[in-house]
């Protein structure tokens, strides 16, 4: 069986993704925490793992640089990739919500056009378009919550897990656009040209997702 390459996202999903690979027997426990390497041979030699920025991960899988990848549904919604989305791995639950400052949350729908700061411009535009509303989207790369506080935007569209960040910044959720968890995605050619190895890895990760040790909160 040929070696299968699995891409793991850095950041929010990394810990749970690594635990899933450990539960699947693909990574020796703790192996990743002891190194700063971006690519690691897996335990048993049938897989190797690489770490990629979440925004780049789909590109690795699309081009076949990785056969499989673990990606948040939020990323898949924002950037439709030419990949097979096969398994809901169950971890990394979060919601994409629209939020406004406390003092304007009540009447945002009366505004003619709103300006929204977000890391998810396409999802945001789709949401407003599907409701027949005008929107100016400002694409940001971090600390989106800051934008309404300093007058850069009227509101934000962002991921929330507990809602703490929103509350701390006096923002109120007004709508939920999506719910997201981590998904297992597969390159369309790997699924065929290395069918046995890839199918075996998909099954093993599907099983491991249920058994993975919970990440410390």
């Amino acid at each position, binding site marked *: 069986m040929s070696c299968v390459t699995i891409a793991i996202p850095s950041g929010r999903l990394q810990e749970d993704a690594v635990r899933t690979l450990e539960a699947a027997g693909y990574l020796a426990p703790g192996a990743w925490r002891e190194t700063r390497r971006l690519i690691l041979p897996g335990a048993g030699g049938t897989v190797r793992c690489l770490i990629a920025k979440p925004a780049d991960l789909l590109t690795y899988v699309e081009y076949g640089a990785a056969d499989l990848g673990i990606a948040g549904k939020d990323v898949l919604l924002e950037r439709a990739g030419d990949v097979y*989305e096969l398994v809901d791995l169950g971890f990394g639950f979060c919601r994409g919500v629209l939020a406004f400052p406390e003092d304007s949350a009540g009447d945002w729908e009366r505004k003619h056009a709103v300006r929204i700061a977000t890391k998810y411009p396409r999802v945001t535009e789709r949401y407003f378009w599907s409701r027949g509303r005008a929107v100016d989207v400002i694409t940001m790369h971090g600390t989106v919550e800051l934008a309404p506080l300093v007058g850069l935007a009227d509101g934000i569209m962002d991921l929330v897990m507990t809602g703490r960040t929103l509350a701390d910044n006096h923002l109120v959720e007004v709508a939920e656009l999506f719910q997201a968890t981590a998904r297992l995605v597969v390159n369309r050619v790997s699924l065929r*040209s290395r069918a046995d190895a890839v199918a075996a890895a998909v099954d093993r990760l599907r099983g491991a997702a249920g058994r993975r040790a919970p990440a410390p909160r």
Partner: protein
Amino acid sequence: MQLERWQQVPAGTRDLLPHEAARVRAVIDRVLDRMRRWGYREVTTPTLEYLDVLVRGEGAAVGGRLFKLVDRDGELLALRPEMTTPVARLVATRLRAAPLPLRLAYAGPVFRWREAGSGRLREFPQVGGELVGAGTLEADAEIVTLAVEALRATGVGQSSVSLGHVGFLRGLLAGLGLAEPALDGIRTLLYQKDFVGLRRLLEAHGAPPPRVRAVLALPTLQGPRALEEARRLADTPELLAVVEDLAALERMLRAYGVWDTVTLDLGIIRDFDYYTGIVFEGHTTALGVPLLGGGRYDRLLERFGVPLPATGFAVRVERVLSAGEEPADAWAPDAVVAFDNGSREAALACAKQLRERGLVVAVEVQGRSWDEVARDAEARGAERALLVRGEAVLVRERGGRQRVMPLAALRDGEAGGCRE
């Protein structure tokens, strides 16, 4: 340093240097040559088409991925995004009265709008063939075999063709017992290959669990046992007919001797929705994107007024090239010819004769001294430099060995004026 516009080419387009252009040309020529032996004759259609033609062939959604132009009289034009629709237009117009079946081949650049920075080409070469007017499995078997042969002719290693049938997917969807708006959502998720969302939607609509399992099993319904498994899942006459077609096709492809390169794969989902029967893709383990794609499209030509069945495929030439090792540019002329005052006629006649023998010969055009010419020839890797002086010629072999010989002897092929 900021590059000026005049120093660049548009995003997603490429210049090809001599050794790259030679590789593209070689792949296209080998595939066309293979198809010619099967009776496929090359046609050429314009790079530009009326937007109406492309929309008629591929549906309104194609508009979003076209490069469009407005003609001076206000007509909307577009650069062709693929060749099947232009060939269909050609068949429906100029070739309307031609005897069937028609076997046509084509090669040329196609254009698709892509976001800059996506790493995807916006202009790339395609070579392919269409078999029009035969709705039989025999025709499908011919096209799949030709696709296998085309892939082999390109020289890509470890290649294979995955063969599916859109009827299986459609049959499974029809058997869900769901109404059209729900089916639309399901088709959208299938095109997006989102099988997580698909499971949720199917369950939410209360689709029968065995059917849900069958749809979700599609991505891995492939390989030697796929047909058996598909037959087990086929519980309607439509699905059974698809399975029997695929079984018959397998027998034909075995007879053609290409079945060892073909894998049955019912999870093939092609981006173009004009396919009506078999669909297939060519792959190599060395590349994460398909090298070729094709299938049967029996409803496309009727959109142009001639209800003819058709089947065909196209090869992505630049992907074939990126799947192979890029060789170093090893090109060099066989001979460089210089001459003394008064010997021009003899020298040019000599060069002409060598070329007629198939050699690559460059004549000195800068008036340089013999020393300079010989040094330059050596640096370029030329086999030899020749200095014609009246009836004699000074031959300097690569590496520096020199000798004088009669011009007549060189012309007659003595002393290795060539390296056949």
